[in-house]
Every structure is written in C-alpha cells, then in structure tokens.
C-alpha cells in the first residue's frame, strides 16, 4: 500500500531531523523548520488527493480507496503534528497562551471527531447491506438467458436497494423510531406488488437528536487562523491539524450514510486561501460540496463513489426490468445491454467486498489514534501542573 511506504519514509525523515537537531543550535530555528516542513507535507498530501483523476475508477474522488488514502494521510499528518507539539519543544509551552486556550479547544474537537468516527463506522454497515443487495441483482442478471424470473428477482432486489439508498437521513432515524415492524398484514397486499422486505434501517447508535452535520459544525467553533505573532508559533500547527481533522470528518460524513446530515454543505471552512497548505483542502471542499448540493435535494445515502455507481446502474437496471415486465420480453440487444450493466455493477460490489472492512478498520485506527493523542496531551497538561481541570 502506498501509504505504508509513505509512513516509512516519514519516520525516516524524523530520524534524520533528530540528527539535525543535535547538530544545530537554536530551538526556535528548528521549530520554524519543523513547521514549514509540516505545512509542506500537508499541502503535498492534499494536492495528491485533489488531483485524483475522476476517470480512473480505482482512485476516483470519494471512492473507497480514495478515502483510505485520505485516512492514511490524516494519520501521517497527525503523527507529524504530535511530533511537533510534544517532542523537542519545551513542554511547558502547551500551558502558556495561546496554546492554553487552543489545546483544550483542540481536544474538544477531537472528542467530537470520535463520535463522527463511530457514526461513520455504523454507516458502513448500511453500505455493506447495499453491497449484498447489489450482489443479488448481479447474480440474477448474469444468468443466461435473462427471463421473466431473473428480471423479477432483480427488480425486487433493486426496489429494496434503491429505496434503501434514497432514504434520507431523517427518514432513517424516523423509520427506526416508529419501530418498523415486519408487516403481518402483507398478505393483504396484492401479491404482484408485494414489496420485498430487504429494507434495513440504519440503527441509531446514539440519541435520536444527534446530528452529524451539527457535530461537524460544532467542530468549526473557535476555529480561526492564528494572527500576527501567533502565526509563527505552535498555534499554527494546532490550527492546521484542526482544519485537517474537520475536513476529514466532513468528507467521511458526506461519503458514507450517517445520521442527520442536513446542512452539511453549508459548513464553512475558515481556511484562508493565502495559506499554501490550505489550497488543496479548500479545492476538495468546494468540489465535494458541489457534489453534495446536487445530491442533497434528492436525498442520498452518500457520495461514496462505489455507492453512486451502484445507484446509477441500479436505476438503469430498474428501467430495464420495468420495460421487461411491460413488454413481457426483450430484444437480444437489450438483454446484452442489461448483462453488461450487471457486469458493471459487479465492479463496485467487488471493490466494496475488498475495501469496506479495511476502511472500517482504518476508521477505528483513526479513532484510536485520536484517543491516544488526546490522552497524551491531557497527561502533558497534567504534568505541566495546570491546576484547572481539562474541559473534557
């Protein structure tokens, strides 16, 4: 995996830099170099993410592999950030202004990010369900010849799939709240139109009024670029890391089904364009935000590339099965087209099969990393002898 290589080289850089520290005089100069390097890496990493070609399906924006790369970069940035904040520097700095204010705010943001991680982990369970439904569609339509039975089978599952994916977040929790029971009265429904019961609601893992969008909005509270003299000190990496954290969580929520995402596109990143490292993040934010706005009105499960493909192909195949039922039969050409679309649908299924679990585990890794850094920062604050208790 490219990211592992990246990490390795990153560690290598750290050791080189340690040697330099010994060779060099002046802590401040070193600090400045570290900061410069940090923002350089941030801008390189996000530029790479921004330049992901849309046409290459594997690395497309918001595809599973793209998200995994994003999380890898997050972990790299985080490691570097922690290094700057906690190694080599005078530890008492974190208890002095402006860090005495910025660090607790950062920790507060971290806790919110943890809840987002959990919500997304939960959302991936829905994605897994979509995958399983899509696989049924594929296996129904890859049979030859495609007849009425296959078409009906596909249609039934497609109905479940499309309605599951189109359920917007609010309905999701409402469906759960009204305790969607498996209807006993289904025998009353005319048998031809019986709605298949593949639909599975997203389980709430937190209170019903929890909102992913509000959570991320709250993460941007107090998030302002450091000004004046602060800009050259440790306030700047804290700010940078905060922006990265907010962006990563925002992107995850946009991509993966999540509880309550109303207003997600309205979240504004206070990242000024003149900051070099921020440009790619702003670019990504704009790009994904546009996508989100397009989908928001219709209600969508999320912008995950594989899911979008699934949705698109699902709709095409749905039309196919509709026309099949209408005409009773189809031309060979139509059948071939359908088979081709089914084969195309198998692709995102395959990528989900390979990528969802690793993605889920990676989100857990991010979770644990955030917890670890938080604990270390709290301990450091404690050691410095700050008498007032931490915010959280």
């Amino acid at each position, binding site marked *: 995996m490219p990211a592992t290589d990246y990490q390795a080289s990153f560690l290598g850089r750290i050791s080189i830099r340690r040697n330099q520290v010994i060779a060099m005089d002046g802590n401040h100069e070193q600090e400045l170099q570290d900061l410069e390097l940090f923002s350089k890496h941030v801008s390189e990493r996000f530029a790479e993410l921004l330049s992901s070609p849309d046409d290459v399906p594997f690395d497309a924006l918001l595809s599973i592999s793209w998200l995994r790369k994003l999380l890898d970069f997050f972990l790299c940035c985080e490691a570097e950030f922690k290094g700057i904040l906690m190694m080599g520097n005078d530890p008492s700095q974190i208890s002095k202004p402006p860090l005495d204010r910025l660090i607790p705010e950062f920790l507060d943001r971290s806790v*919110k990010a943890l809840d987002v991680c959990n919500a997304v982990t939960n959302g991936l369970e829905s994605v897994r369900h979509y995958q399983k439904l899509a696989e049924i569609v594929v296996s129904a339509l890859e049979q030859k010849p495609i007849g009425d039975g296959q078409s009906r089978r596909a249609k039934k599952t497609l109905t479940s799939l499309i309605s599951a994916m189109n359920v917007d977040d609010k309905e999701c929790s409402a469906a759960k709240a009204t305790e969607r029971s498996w209807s006993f009265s289904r025998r009353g429904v005319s048998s031809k139109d019986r709605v298949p*019961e593949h639909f599975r609601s997203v389980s709430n893992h937190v209170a019903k009024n929890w909102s992913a969008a509000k959570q991320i909005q709250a993460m941007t509270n107090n998030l302002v670029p450091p000004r004046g003299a602060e800009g050259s000190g440790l306030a700047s990496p804290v700010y940078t890391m905060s922006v990265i954290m907010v962006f990563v969580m925002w992107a995850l929520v946009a991509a993966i089904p999540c509880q309550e995402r109303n207003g997600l596109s309205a979240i504004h990143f206070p990242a000024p364009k003149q900051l070099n490292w921020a440009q790619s993040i702003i670019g990504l934010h704009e790009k994904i935000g546009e996508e989100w706005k397009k989908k928001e009105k219709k209600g969508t499960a999320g912008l995950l590339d594989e899911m979008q493909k699934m949705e698109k192909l699902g709709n095409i195949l749905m039309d196919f099965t509709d026309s099949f039922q209408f005409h009773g039969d189809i031309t060979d050409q139509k059948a071939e087209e359908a088979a081709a679309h089914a084969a195309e649908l198998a692709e995102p299924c395959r990528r989900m099969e390979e990528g969802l679990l690793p993605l889920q585990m990676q989100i857990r890794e991010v979770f644990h990393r955030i917890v670890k850094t938080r604990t270390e920062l709290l301990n450091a604050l404690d050691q410095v002898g700050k008498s007032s208790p931490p915010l959280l």
Partner: protein
Amino acid sequence: MDECQSAIPAHDGDLHVVAAAHHIVKALGTTKNLSDDLRKILIDLDAHLSLITSNIDSKGGKGFVEVEERLKRVERKIVIWESDRIMIWDSGPKEVSDYLEAVDEVQTLIDSLRGLSMNENQKQKELLHRASSLLQMAMSRLEEELIHMLVKHKQQSEPTYMPSPSSQRNVVYSESVVSLDNESAKEASSKSSRSDECGEYIVDLVPEHVIPDIKSIAKVMFASDYGQEFCEAFIGVRKEALEQHFDILENGKLSIEDVLKMEWCSLSTEMNKWTWSMKIIFRVYLMSEKRLCDQVLGEFGSVNSFCFLEIAKTTILCLLNFGEAIAMGPQEPEKLLRLLDMYETLADLVLDIDALFSEDGGSFVRLEFHKLLEGLADSVKAAFNTFRVAVSSNGSLYPFPGGGVHPLSKYVMNYISMFPDYSSTLNLLLEDQHSDVASLVSEPQCGPTASLSTSCPMACHLRSITSSLESNLHKKSKLYKDEALQHIFLMNNLHYMVQKVKGSELRPFFGDEWIRKHNAKFQQHEMNYERVTWSSVVLLLKDDNPGSSSLSKSAFKEKCKGFSIAFEEVYKNQTSWCIPDPQLREDLRISTSLKVVHAYRTFLGRNPAHVDDKCIKHTVEDVEKLLLDLFEGSPRSLRNSRRMMKT
C-alpha cells in the same frame, strides 16, 4: 431442433439404453437409505432421462409435452398460494410438504432444461422462462414465509435465569474523596453478594420446533441459488430482534461526548448497566444467536459466521463505544470499583468473544475488545493511582470537630474493604507497580507471620494506602491546638482503621503483625492523651511534703480549688469531644478513672480533718460520675451541673 436432437440418441437401440437407464434410476430412487445429495442427483437424472425419452418419442416440436405438463401441475400448486392470505406454514404440514415438493420439482425441471445443450428451441426456452418465473415466485413467497415465521416466533421474554443488575455489587459511591472534608460520609453498608455467574445461558431465540421449518426454507432457497436472499432476510429480522433486546436492557444511546460530560451518579448507573448488558448480550443473546445461525445455516458453508457477524455488529459497536468512552475519561478515584467491574466482566468474556468471532471477518471485533480490555486495565491503574493520591493529598483547613472518626478514614476504609472482592484482578493489574510500592510500605512482613496474602501486590498497595491515610491523619491532627485532642483524634481514627481491618476480608491482606502494630499505635495515643490531660491535674493533688502527715487547712483548700478549676476546665472541654466507639470510650474512662479518682480519693483520704462541704466542690463520687460525661460529643459546663447538684 436438429441441434437439440444431436445430443439425443435417435436410434431404437439407443432408446432402449435410455429406457433401461431410466428404469435403473427409478429403481434406485426407491431405496430407503439414500443421502439427500444422492437422492437429488437421482431425481435430476430421472427428469433428464424422461426429457430425452419424450424428445425421442415426439421426434421434434412437441417433445416437451411431458415437461410442460409437469410444469403446469406445479404451476397450479405454486400460483394457488399467491392469492391466499394464509401463510403456508400456518396451514399445515401437508401444505408445507406439497409446496416444498413443488418447488423442488420446478428446480428439477429448470436443471433439466438447462442441462440440455444450448439451442434455439423456442419451446425449450419458453419453458425455461416459465419455470424460472415460477421459481422466482416461489422464492419470493418462501422469503416472505421466512420473515413471517421469524417475526412471529421472535422470543421477547427477558431471560430470568441470570442475576439481575440489582443483585450485583451496587454500592454507588456518589461522593468523591476530594469533596469530602467535614461532610458526613455515609457508612457504606456494602458487601452485597457478588453475583457469581458462570456457565452458559443459551436460550431458544426461536422455539425449537420452528427450527426445522426455517431450515427447510433455507435448504430450498440455497438449493435454488437464492441463498443471498435468505441471508439478507434472516439477518434483517434477527438483527432487529437483537437490537430490541439491547434496548430492553435500557442502555442509553450515548455519544462519547455525552459520556465524558456525565455526572458521576448517572455515569455510575450507566457503567453498571454496561457491565450487566455485556454479560447478557454476549453470554445469552450472542451465544444463542450463534447457535441459531449454526443450526439454520451450518450446512451451507461459511454463511453462518457471516450472518452472525452482520446480526451482531451494530449492537457490539454500541457496547464497544461506551467502553471506549469510559476508558478514555478522566479516572477519578470513585470510578475505581465500577472500572474494576467493567474490567472483570470483559476479562471474563474475552475468551467467549474470541470463540464467537473466531473467523476472519470477526478479527475486527476480537481485536477491538482486546484493545478495550487493555484500555480498561490502564484505567483501573490510573484510578487506583488517583485514589492513592487523593488519600494522601486530601487537605483540610479546619480541625474535624470533636476529634472523632474523620470522613476520609471512613471513606477510605470502607472503599478498600471492597477490594478483596477484586483481589485477583488487582493483583494482576498492580503487579508491575508492585516493586515501587513494596519498598514504601513500612512494615516488612517477615518471619512466620509473612504469608502469601500479606505479600501480594494488592496487600502492599493496601498497606501503602493506609499508611498514606495515616500520614494524612497526622497532618490533620496538627490542626488541633489542644495536644490532648490531637491524640484523641489519632486514637479514634487508628482504632477505626484497625477495627475495619479486623472485621472485614481485609484482615488476611494486612496480617496480624500490622494489627498488633496499629493496636499499639492507638494505645500509645490513648496513653499520651492521659498524660497530656491528666498528669498536670493529678500533680495538683500531689503531696508537696511527703514527710508530714497532713496539709494545713489553707494548703488543702488551695489544692482543692486548683483541682476543681482544672477538672472543670477539662470537663468543659472534653465533654464536647467524641469517641464514637463505645468500647474504646469505656476503656478510656476506666483508665482515666483509675488514675484520677484514685489520686483524688487518696488525697482526700490523707486529709480527713479538712474534708467538709465547704472546701470540697466535688466528692469522689461526683468526679467518678462526671468522668462519664466525657467524650459524648455534647458540650457541658459544670456550672449547670453544680447548680443541679445543689438543688
């Protein structure tokens, strides 16, 4: 047609071979002890051969007549249910077996039609489509039957055979050490029995008699390549059922942010609920769910573990997240016992979790819970340390009134008296911090009294905590201006500690040596008290001139007055002091009495000539009686009692 027939023998001789083969197959089919697989093969073969025969017979176009007939027959059997409002499985075993047979037949026909070489035979194609449609109709129906069955037989009852959370160790320490000063700490009447649950509590999540029905559906659906549909439907219902069970356990759906902001009282309740839910969910529901998955899906390869994981995952994530939130929270001392409960519960379950999720897909779950266990272990250690720090650093600005047992002593001793319940866990977790503490503990246990229980890590930690407590009490005693009260305070508190150790399961961890030493300590304070308070008073009665037989009247009067004033002063002061333990109070009074009353009596006895009411304010009997008022914690003055005595 030609292509079709190219695969089919056309000569009479061949026809005979086919007929013979058909005959053999039919004969074999009547054999009783056939495996299901073999029977299926024979049925398929039978269908195939009859198809060939019919093709040969008809020599062309109308060759599928028999197939069509068969298809029509099963079509009727399947379609008839489509308009029926009653579920097949609710109708009776005959209906069920007829339906299943019909589905089997459709599948057989499809297999046979597919088995023929690909061709342009319109009839064959049409029949295949019809059969597939029929199969889809039947599968859709079976799925519906399955969901209906699962929902109808979802067992809603709560398992009653596991101890309920209320019977667990339930003492909620709502106070914290830090906010303790001069507040009365409730004596924790703890020692609720420790629920000792072991063994498994597998229940029938679906009544046993329904399992064969579910399995029969699974079988035909898997045989017809509709296994995925079966799994999704099965997962859907079972997942929801598990979530309902989880909801019944009343776990608050809390975000990490919620947990970190929670008041200790509610948090303690939530922690208890978690401990309880973990046991129920894993020991009862997941164990049972796993069994159900194995029963229903065991014969279809690895789908059972896949389905189980899908059913369990969201509920598990909920439990996991609360655990994580607790493990990352600030570890205040009052959390220690709850954390120990959580740790022990998970430590106890972790092997079960490994077994439940032994497959590759479950490695995620296994890994996360192992991580959580580590996190909880760290939390226990951290809470233990903050407890220790809190014990030694708990400060007071004002002396504790009356010199009685300080709330800190009560809190600490009651709190640690629960530790023996957790001794094996604490020994394990405190092991690595053992050496530092062992050297700190002042009393080395040596000789014949040293035993395993007094030298284990927990014992050392316990003694280090009580020694922190002792030094803190010494600090607190210095707040009293009156030296005698300092001794009373230390005596009271040390005595309390000894009593707590002697009267609880703490005893083996402290050992007789510790008890002896601490007995001696409080007795020393008792003696010091007597010396400081009474020596000077008794001294007043001392014979200045041992040579002469008696004192002059004025000297006697002077001494009497001095004694009275000193005695009244002590009385006024020390009636407000407090010795809560009746035995200790009694002992101290007796020994005081012995000393003071004896000296007074001797003094009066030596000067019989001067003894009269005028100069003796208090008789020996008065003094004896008044001494009983000391240490009752209610201030009195002798002016009142004097008046009372006169009237």
